[in-house]
């Protein structure tokens, strides 16, 4: 039974961590969003109704919980006993109400105890780490290895039947779920700048915890409490169902067991306590889900707003003229290009039915033996453009306009909504390949580097493993790895970032493609390694005579490596031409700004120094 709690603990923190920080504003919008979610309203209505019934039980219940009328056992509902009576002639409706009282109180007690232990322990362990954290983790691992019901049986054997003692014990047992939640949340904000700032400005640890950190864990704790209250109700009822609860109390578990004993005589006795349990626990589960959804929606809307704002600033009317001309030139060309992108638009459908465009009316081409740079700041749509050539856009992306041709054939024909995977999967690896930005996350940690180099060659080229292995070792040597044998048998976590990027470049050229798409291939690397990797790319490109699309935000890299360059801003192509023309005579204001921010009045990037080259023409 502790499994479902763990679920909530694992699922809850991730989406909600960033939300609580902005305090009351966010909170009130979350509540508003919660009130707009029908499931959230239903959940709250159910829980509210059950709470009210529980509180008003002494007033509403026509009989005392244990009052029995021996003359009237197992009676059908009538005007006196509206839900009938049980085998001892007790009123089912009254016992249901008193049972609700006890059930809710015991769930609250359990959650309260678990919070009182888990929250402070998690705060301390997360904030100060060290020995306390190690000891706590060890205790958590012990508590987690015990099945809740077995522990409660032990407690019952030791202390006798008591709802309160068993719920305190269960609260202790389940406190690790709060501990883990809080610790993880605190660890993730402990080193945030604003916490540092608070520390520097002389706030005590206590007030930092109270003000900054507590606001972060508040939302996940509410979600967690809903889950834990549900589990507590289930396990307490189970204990009472076994006949190990307090016999003087009316509880849903006892009523269920009563009904089960008389199942041949009056099965409806089972129905009411089972319904009450399912409604209460279900209400708690739904409430937890609704709060989580409300918090996640908040995140989404925030992102959307930000994107919209960025868009708003673009509406630059001036750029039309020249851009149109350069694009017209591309379109009119009848010559055979390696890649030809025509008026491409990429968008993402939104919840409200609109489509958010991230790439809009982009056209360019690349020829064999040519390096095209696509430059722009982050969010300009350059990576999205590159991924649509590869056919590796996220599932929810749509091609909203234009077409893509590779070597004369459409991979995205005009009017198609999605990239045709059947067409592209024949090209990927074999004719088009990809060098990613972040080396480490792009290798599967569970397989050796050798395996990850050999398999594509075996699959794509259809060569035997042994030959592929020889080729892989040669490739590793080609990309400048000193000890290919060792790297071949290493796992990704055993090599450095620069080495991993060389491995990825080796993988990209392993099947001798015609086009390599490199997405910021040096951004994640040390400055000294960057220059080497760029040299390697240029050397390979010239030797193999392949076309390269180099996506970057860095004009230095463009000047160093590219033949032509396309400048992108907010999903649109601003300017396109030879590197020399654009560096010497940028026509668009945006290009000038980009150039100015990168080259003028600054010490040149070190890769420019180390490679000592004129901008390639």
């Amino acid at each position, binding site marked *: 039974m502790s499994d479902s709690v763990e679920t909530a603990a694992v699922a809850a923190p991730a989406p909600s961590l960033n939300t609580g920080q902005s305090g009351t504003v966010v909170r009130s919008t979350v509540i508003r969003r919660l009130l707009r979610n029908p499931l959230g309203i239903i959940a709250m209505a159910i829980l509210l109704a059950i709470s009210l019934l529980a509180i008003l039980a002494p007033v509403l219940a026509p009989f005392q919980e244990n009052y029995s009328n021996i003359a009237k056992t197992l009676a059908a509902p009538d005007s006196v006993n509206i839900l009938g009576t049980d085998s001892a002639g007790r009123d089912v409706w009254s016992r249901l109400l008193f049972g609700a009282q006890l059930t809710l109180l015991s769930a609250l007690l359990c959650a309260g105890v678990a919070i009182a232990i888990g929250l402070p322990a998690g705060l301390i362990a997360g904030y100060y780490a060290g020995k306390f954290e190690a000891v706590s983790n060890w205790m958590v691992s012990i508590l987690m290895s015990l099945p809740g019901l077995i522990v409660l049986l032990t407690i019952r054997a030791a202390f006798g039947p008591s709802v309160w003692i068993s719920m305190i014990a269960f609260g202790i047992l389940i406190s690790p779920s709060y501990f883990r939640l809080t610790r993880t949340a605190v660890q993730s904000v402990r080193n945030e700048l604003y916490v540092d700032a608070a520390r520097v400005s002389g706030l005590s640890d206590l007030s930092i915890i109270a003000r900054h950190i507590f606001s972060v864990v508040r939302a996940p704790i509410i979600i967690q409490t809903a889950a834990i209250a549900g589990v507590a109700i289930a396990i307490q009822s189970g204990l009472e169902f076994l006949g190990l609860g307090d016999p003087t109390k009316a509880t849903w578990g006892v009523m269920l067991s009563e009904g089960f004993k008389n199942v041949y005589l009056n099965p409806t006795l089972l129905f009411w306590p089972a319904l009450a349990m399912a409604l209460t626990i279900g209400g708690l589960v739904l409430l937890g889900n609704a709060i989580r959804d409300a918090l996640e929606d908040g995140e989404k809307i925030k992102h959307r707003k930000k994107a919209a704002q960025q868009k708003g600033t673009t509406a630059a009317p001036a750029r039309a003229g020249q851009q149109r001309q350069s694009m017209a030139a591309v379109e009119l060309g009848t010559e055979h290009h390696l890649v030809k992108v025509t008026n491409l638009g990429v968008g993402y459908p939104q919840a409200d039915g609109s489509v958010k465009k991230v790439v809009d009316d982009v056209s360019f081409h690349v020829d064999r033996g040519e390096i095209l740079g696509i430059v722009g700041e982050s969010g300009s749509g350059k990576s999205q453009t590159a991924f649509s050539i590869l056919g*590796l856009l996220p599932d929810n992306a749509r091609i909203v306009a234009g077409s893509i041709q590779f070597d004369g054939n459409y991979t995205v024909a005009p009017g198609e909504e999605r990239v045709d995977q059947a067409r592209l999967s024949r090209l990927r690896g074999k004719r088009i390949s990809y060098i990613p930005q972040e080396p480490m996350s792009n290798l599967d940690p569970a397989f050796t580097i050798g395996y990850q180099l050999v398999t594509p060659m075996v699959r794509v080229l259809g060569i035997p493993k042994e030959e592929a292995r020889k080729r892989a070792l040669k490739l590793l040597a080609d990309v400048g790895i000193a000890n290919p044998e060792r790297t071949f048998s290493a796992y990704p976590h055993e090599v450095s970032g620069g080495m991993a990027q060389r491995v990825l470049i080796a993988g990209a050229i392993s099947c001798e493609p015609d086009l390599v798409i490199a997405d910021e291939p040096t951004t994640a690397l040390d400055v000294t390694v960057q220059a080497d990797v760029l040299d390697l790319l240029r050397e390979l490109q010239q030797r193999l005579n392949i076309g390269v699309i180099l996506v970057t935000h860095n004009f230095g890299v463009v000047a160093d490596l590219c033949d032509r360059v396309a400048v992108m801003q907010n999903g649109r192509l601003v300017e396109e031409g030879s590197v020399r023309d654009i560096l010497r005579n940028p026509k668009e204001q945006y290009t000038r700004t980009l150039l100015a921010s990168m080259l003028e009045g600054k010490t040149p990037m070190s890769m420019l120094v180390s490679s000592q080259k004129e901008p390639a023409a």
Partner: protein
Amino acid sequence: MIRFIAKRLGSGLVVLFVVSALTFFLLYVSSGSIARNILGDQATAEQVAMKEHELGLDQPLVVRYFSWVADALSGNLGASWFTSEPVANSLATRIPVTMTMVFAAMILIAVCAALIGVVAAVKRGWVDRVVQVGAIIGDSIPGFVIGVILVTILAIQLGLFPATSTISPESGPEAWVYSMALPVIALLVNGVTGGAQQIRSAVIKQLERDYVRTLRSRGIGEREILFKHVLRSAAPAGLTVLSLQLVGMLGGVVIIEQIFALPGMGPLAVAATGQSDLPVVMGVVMYTVVVVIVVNLLVDILNGWLNPKVRVS
């Protein structure tokens, strides 16, 4: 790898020791009038003192604990105070019944949850929505309530299954499987709904990783990516989910056995708890902890095999 296993085994033994000590002190420190309970109100003070001496209750707690440990290491877990049956014997006759059910349910959960979870993650659409709704319903209804509902409707009202499952394997495999069907279903419903949802999110998380995109860009087929790479990386999360469910099920099975009148650990544990038959309670706790430790060890080993990084650290 051997060092890794030895380390895990060692920490498992430490947990076993700590839990046994905690349970022992918890059980014995609070129950003052054990002998009086056993003999009843009519017994004289002399008889009570003799009983206390007989059970060793007149010795200090710590001494008693270590003599319990010494006995336990030689396979002697003491005897029930009420039936005088050796605890080890009762466990030996009952564990097979319970473990058969638990493992049958766990295997079915693993297969169904993995299958449904992976399909929901890959195909999305209606399967995914069914999994989401199923998880909410499964979370809302405790396993033993599902058991009660199943018996009432399928066994008692429709007569499709036997209501109690006391049939032993000797009466033919078919009848036995038939009699075990309902308790196993009652055990696995929550596991399948919860497990499928968690495995679904683990697989989705892996599908969104960068290396999956890079594998696609290398020309590796979708099926190979899913079965060789994604499932392998999602497996540790799935194993953790399953091992937590097994821990929970060791508790849940007690109630299920009670409902279906199965001669497993459940009735033993419930009777011993109600009477405060402490040697038996102690034995039940020990069996549970040993099962949990062994399962966690297996999960650790599997994870180490699946993920080379774990082996190193």
